């Protein structure tokens, strides 16, 4: 097992840990805002580390660029969606009845 392989394993493990933490956070945290927090962590860091591991393992620049693109897209999409969802959560919060009612 070479140094690169070890690095790949380390990155993979850390990435998976972030994923797991994000999922557990989403499951366990008490309120919407902190759950959103958990979500963005997992999105950006977990996927980033896993993607880095995959790129290292592949060892090809073209593929690494593509993997970087996947990560970039995911980060941008996560940023947008968390903005939208935060706004939505605030709108919901200002109403007296959070869900399921209609004017």
């Amino acid at each position: 097992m070479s140094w690169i392989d070890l690095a790949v394993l380390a990155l993979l493990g850390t990435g998976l840990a972030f994923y797991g933490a994000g999922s557990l956070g989403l499951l366990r945290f008490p309120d919407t805002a902190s759950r959103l927090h958990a979500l963005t962590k997992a999105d950006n860091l977990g996927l980033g580390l896993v993607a880095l591991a995959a790129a290292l393992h592949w060892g090809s620049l073209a593929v690494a660029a593509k993997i970087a693109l996947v990560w970039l897209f995911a980060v941008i999409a996560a940023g947008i969606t968390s903005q939208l969802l935060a706004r939505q959560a605030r709108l919901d919060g200002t109403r007296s009845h959070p869900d399921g009612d209609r004017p």
Partner: protein
Amino acid sequence: MTAAFDIILCLLILGTAGIALFVRDALAAIAFFIAFGNLLGLAWLGLDAVNVALAEIALGAGVTGVLLILARARLLALGDDATCADTSAWLRVGALAACGGFVLLLAAAVLSIPPESGLDRAITPLMPALGIENRVTGVLLAFRAYDTLLESFVLLGALVAVWSLAPAGVWPGRPADLGMADGPMRRVAGSFARFLLPVALVMATYLVWAGSDVPGGAFQAGTVLAGGLIVSAIGGAIGLPRSDLPGLRVALVLGPLVFLLIGLAGTGFGGFLVYPEGLAKAAMLSIEYSLFLSIGATLALLVTGPNVIGLADPAGGTERKSDC
């Protein structure tokens, strides 16, 4: 290890499908349906069928999901929350028995057939003549181009069928506005759209180009384009066109028309849908590039639905022109 992956994935697929079907809240059902579609995409990756995985993730999960979300929102605005009324216990017991028996029979039939890639042997020797590497594209655009031709007309026909549902007095109007109702959210979605639309266009072009040799193709690419267009409509970056706009009609018709004309031109080389020697790849690429534009436009309009007088905002929904 691979077997563990396969089995866990299949269990997850079954679980998400069950929840998507039987959860009470319609929004949760759709969310689970999308997750189900994405997991199915993984199943296709697990089967090394990347072409199908792309189609499933893009069309089965993506476009169908957005479609259902918007349909549910419209129903909700009308006071229909799409939860299911309980049916009688007898019906459920009877259906359970019938479906259970059916599954057992089907499973027995499935197990009696050994999995094999039998037609691969027939396809591989024919590929060099086409000048492309992707065998699925070969099947779609050469060996069974006729199916694909008819299929592109099914897609167009579905849009015509959706148009035919427009109530009296709104033709040729616009579909209901997709724009975000809330101002700040609209701005966020708008800036996202201005980023996504060009990206989607580049990516779709890449998918068509790559589709000759590696997984990709017109349908997957068209879906990516449709995704970009839908986000743009939600963010207000583009307005929805009038249904009788000549440019729109040309965009919708272009792909099927080019496909049909190339097919008919084949008559000069020996028969319908015969590609001239050496030009097979060029013919297929022309079909795919025109098809992907039409598919993108068609899918985007299919998602937006028929022209409508919104009950919530009479008249405004159909005629308001969205601005940038």
